[in-house]
């Protein structure tokens, strides 16, 4: 009999699932194979040790102290209900408001003069935004030219923060262990 088959029989024996023919095979192999007998001895000792070791109890006031730490579930349930209600209202209200506005203001807004003035206003607003963004970019460009050291330091700081962020993530969040099958 192969050793691997012996191990399977050993496990069945430990689980109390060894059939009669398996028991005969295992006994015969153990009598003929000293290394397997030695391993079986060791496994049996450990098995018996684990089986006979009682569970450990916590300190006598453990339940009391744990009970004192329990959060108030009723408050939590009401808080969650309130949050969900708010979220629901927050989602539904704007839709209702939009539908109402469409009904009320729809006929007015569809007038050609109003439509053209709205499009003009949007065009002006976009022009203003474009001017502001262009000014900001021009200012940034000037700063890069005049103060390259400050920009360099900012880039170095960003690099350091990003590296340390990665390192700390590696240290704190270990990858999940692979299943051994």
């Amino acid at each position: 009999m192969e050793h691997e088959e012996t191990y399977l029989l050993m496990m069945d024996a430990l689980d109390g699932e060894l059939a009669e023919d398996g028991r005969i095979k295992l006994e015969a192999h153990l009598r003929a194979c000293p290394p397997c007998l030695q391993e079986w001895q060791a496994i049996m000792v450990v098995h018996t040790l684990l089986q006979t070791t009682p569970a450990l109890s916590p300190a006598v006031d453990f339940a009391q102290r744990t009970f004192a730490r329990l959060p108030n579930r009723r408050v939590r349930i009401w808080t969650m209900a309130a949050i969900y209600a708010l979220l629901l209202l927050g989602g539904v209200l704007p839709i209702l408001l939009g539908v109402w506005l469409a009904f009320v203001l729809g006929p007015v807004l569809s007038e050609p003069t109003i439509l053209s003035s709205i499009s003009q206003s949007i065009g002006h607003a976009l022009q203003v935004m474009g001017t502001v963004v262009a000014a900001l970019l021009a200012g940034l460009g000037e700063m890069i030219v005049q103060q390259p050291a400050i920009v360099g330091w900012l880039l170095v700081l960003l690099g350091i923060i990003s590296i340390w962020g990665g390192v700390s993530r590696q240290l704190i969040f270990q990858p999940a262990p692979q299943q051994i099958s």
Partner: protein
Amino acid sequence: MNEEQVWLDEARQGDKAAFGKLIEAYQTPVYNLAYRMLNNAGEAEEAAQEAFIRAYTRLDSYDPAHKFSTWMLSITSNYCIDIIRKRRALLLSIDEPLPPHPALMSDNSKGPEAQVVMNEQQEMVQALLSELPEDYRETVVLRYWYDLSYEEIAEMMDTTVSAIKSRLFRARRLLAEVGQANGLVTMNDSMVLTAVS
């Protein structure tokens, strides 16, 4: 409806006292699992308390089709594995001397000699368990102290029955190897062969 289901229903409606009864009923299995996994009395107590708090706050996600004990042990073991990973991340060695469990120091219900023998046995078991990787340790603890079936353990650990069988098989061999190296083997051949039958 049994007593446990009544407590669970009441606890789900926010009755803390009902959950208190569940804590009293399950404190030993939950604490024992935490201690076997973490090998540290203080951490085990903290983990057991945290497991009960998590169970209480997540009662809505408990599926009554499963045993409450299995669900509770699953929360405990997951939390313990998180602690072990954080411990590893903090580069703390589990080999460093740990404070013994209070029950190993004093128990008036047994005689002094029996107490010494029991303490030695508990220490030996902890020393052996600490040699196992955490997933093997979890499997061994669930199998030996909670008498869970392979199917239940697989469900708890979110894996297959064959993976659990394989883990237990390797864990037993590894424990036997460590036991042999520590001179634990004292049975004679006839005892061993009797044990087969």
